[in-house]
């Protein structure tokens, strides 16, 4: 049952991402990526990461991707659809990517992973994933957490400075 859902979600993600990479229209690509993210959220729930699934939808789909759409609309992409879409090194790049895929396949084939463990809680229980995650995030990973917030602040200021129109007085 779990495996079946995994295959459904995985197929959805891979399909949507392939769709994303091949679209000429950027908006369509962005929307396909949103679709991929929604499937991915499902996958996360399957893997016992409920909070992460929520964050994936709330922040990624609902935040970052809306930002993308917003910027794309500001930029008038109509022109770029009619231009050549593929870079000159496409063939080489594709070949390299396929080669790498083959190699990773071989690496994964070696296997030898330890036995999977179970979460100490069940999916959907109340003292579960979210509480445990909060416990870890604000104690063990407090410092990375603070660093991440500083990074966000810096990025915010940077984005404002970069995108702001210079007002000449």
């Amino acid at each position, binding site marked *: 049952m779990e495996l079946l859902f*995994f295959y459904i979600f*995985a197929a959805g*993600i*891979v399909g949507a*991402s*392939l769709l*994303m*990479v091949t679209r000429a229209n*950027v908006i369509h*690509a*962005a929307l396909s*990526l949103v679709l*991929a993210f929604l499937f*991915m959220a499902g*996958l996360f729930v399957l*893997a016992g*990461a409920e909070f*992460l699934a929520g*964050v*994936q939808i709330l*922040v*990624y789909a609902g935040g*970052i991707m809306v930002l*993308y759409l917003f*910027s794309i609309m500001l*930029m008038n*992409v109509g022109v*770029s659809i009619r231009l*050549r*879409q*593929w*870079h*000159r*090194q*496409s063939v080489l790049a594709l070949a390299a*990517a396929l080669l*790498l*895929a083959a190699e*990773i*396949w071989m690496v*994964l084939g070696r296997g030898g992973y330890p036995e*999977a*463990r*179970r*979460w*100490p809680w069940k999916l959907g229980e109340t003292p579960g994933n979210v509480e445990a*995650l909060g416990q*870890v*995030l604000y104690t063990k*990973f407090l410092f*990375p*957490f603070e660093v*991440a*917030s500083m*990074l966000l602040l810096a*990025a915010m200021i*940077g*984005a*404002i400075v*970069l995108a702001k129109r210079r007002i000449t007085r």
Partner: protein
Amino acid sequence: MIPLTHFLALGAILFLIGAAGVLMRRNAIMILLSIELMLNSVNVTFVGFARQWADLTGQVFAIFIIAVAACEAAVGLAILISLNRDRQMVNVDEINLLKW
């Protein structure tokens, strides 16, 4: 139970799709989107590992990756917008002032 290799393989496939997108597309926005996909492929891997070992560290780092992705998107898009305003172009291979 889903074997760990499934997660890893999915992550690798997504990563390579993203990488191919970054390398093959000319449009800068497409490149940014592909990078998002690559970041997410790492998330899939992290979540897979977290499940395998029942250890939340993987999920915590997935959260950090999302934070980094938010930064990347904000700054990347800001650069694109100002570039678009100055030069009216979004194709990365035309931005080649470094070459002479």
